[in-house]
């Protein structure tokens, strides 16, 4: 079983990111479950979402406490929220972050991957310049970081969930997939 936790802010499409992952894994033949952290948030407040996928039916209906992967859609959360809480020792972290800037302030015992999902979203015209929607780009990056899920499946998941601009969103994911790279903390 693989467990993933997503961090972002309300309005950034964190929950949809988790649903895209569920759809992608489902199309690859996995059993899946995805859910938001159930709260009464508003736009801008930190939001958490989760996804599980497994080869066997998933019976565990409790929350995810020790994820294998963490996906951060908004790097401003690195300061306020403990985004690494519970991450498994061999866990991987994917962060929406400029690829040429060094990552600081994170413990070096985990593996980190970065992609400028914001820049890619702006480039493909997803969302607005001031509020780009980064969730599809970051999911493309996830396909790079997680071997179990392919970029084709992620793109299919995106086409299923994108309310508009399906092709732009799928293209953003593909570009993110190509550019996502591992960095040292």
């Amino acid at each position, binding site marked *: 079983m693989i467990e993933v936790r997503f961090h972002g802010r309300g309005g950034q499409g964190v929950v949809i990111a988790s*649903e895209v992952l*569920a*759809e992608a894994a489902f199309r690859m033949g996995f059993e*899946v479950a995805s859910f938001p952290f*159930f709260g009464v948030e508003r736009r801008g407040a930190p939001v958490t979402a989760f996804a599980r996928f497994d080869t066997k039916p998933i*019976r565990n209906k*409790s*929350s995810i406490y020790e994820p294998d992967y963490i996906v951060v859609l908004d790097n401003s959360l690195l300061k306020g929220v403990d985004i690494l809480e519970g991450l498994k020792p061999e866990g991987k972290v994917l962060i929406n972050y400029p690829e040429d800037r060094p990552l600081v302030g994170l413990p070096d015992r985990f593996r980190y991957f970065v992609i400028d999902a914001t820049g890619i979203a702006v480039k493909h015209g997803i969302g607005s310049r001031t509020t780009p929607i980064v969730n599809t780009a970051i999911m493309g990056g996830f396909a790079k970081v997680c071997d179990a899920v392919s970029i084709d499946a992620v793109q299919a998941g995106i086409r299923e969930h994108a309310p508009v601009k399906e092709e732009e969103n799928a293209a953003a994911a593909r570009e993110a997939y190509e550019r996502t790279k591992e960095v040292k903390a």
Partner: protein
Amino acid sequence: MRKVMTGNYASAWGARLSRAEVIAAYPITPQTSIVEKLADWVSTGEMKANFIPVESEHSAMAACIAAQAAGARTYTATSSHGLTLMHEVLMWASGARLPIVMTNVSRAMAPPWSVWVDHMDSVAQRDTGWMEFFCQSNQEVLDTIIMAYKVCESKGVMLPAMVIEDAFILSHTSEPVDLPDPAIVDDFLPSYAPELKLEVGKPMGFGSLVRPDQYMEFRYKAMLGMKDAHDRFLRVEQEFKQVFGREHGGLLERYRCDDAEFVLVAAGSVAATAKDAVDALRAKGFPVGLARIRSFRPFPHEEFKALGAKVAGLGVLDRSYTFGAAGAMYTEVKASVYSSSKRPVMKNYIAGLGGRDITPKILERIFEDLMLVTKRPEGNEVEWVEVAGLPRRWR
């Protein structure tokens, strides 16, 4: 065809595939997306139904009662304070023998204000004459709505049913759900055809005054309806299995109970998580099992009577608290087990109130506690799990 969907969408699909003709509902977190989806389908014509936006849950049930009495198959959905607001009309629906099917997204009662899961709202309706089916997966939600209509509308039953989804854990969690072919559902579930209904050409009064010399006979008949529902449900589920290829365990789903010495009883999504705990403990050699109350009404009395005679220790997890001698489900299980040929030691665990998460580890702790119960019969019969300030550790 399998699709990934939330429990709420599974409910909406259940109502749609069952061809509900009148839907009267009022929004409340976390049920809202059920009625939004149904309203959407009705507005585009994908679903042929009359959607009545009402001003409260009480009105929603009143509208369903009237429409059902006029011969329509009706559906509604609610949660928590919406359900309890309907309480007096729930009593009417069952006394009027109207086979309404409703989804209740089981959510804690306020104060304290909570939007998260527990079973207080559902359990508090156990006296209303409604059937109550607790689901552990989104697939079960969809399937049970279809089965419920068939059970409810059968001549010997004619009682309403609520299909219960755990708030957020099922309602807002996306899981793969197989959507049956509508044509096959139509074959399985024919249209609603009651013997008695409101008809302009044949005017009658329904629910008339009955004096003390005749009231008991009507209640006795309602009791027979609920009793019939027990066997009818099992038959309908077997038929469902033949047609659609799956079933969900009857009225009391037993998981690894055959050779278990210690069984935990639970309802709703926590029972699914508990199966993982059972497997983990079995791998270490512990003889444990899980019995899931799928049907709280009709109550699986005979099933518990039989189970009680076979185990050394029987624990019941109540995800509600009803201020009685012990938890509501525990008390009813114990009453059934009282007539078992051999009685186990029993213990009640009050857990998961107000959305408190029940993890596989906590469930393993509960099982470990249960396995000591035969050695410590003088211990607490009712144990509250994970109350800050109490010394016991569960996580």
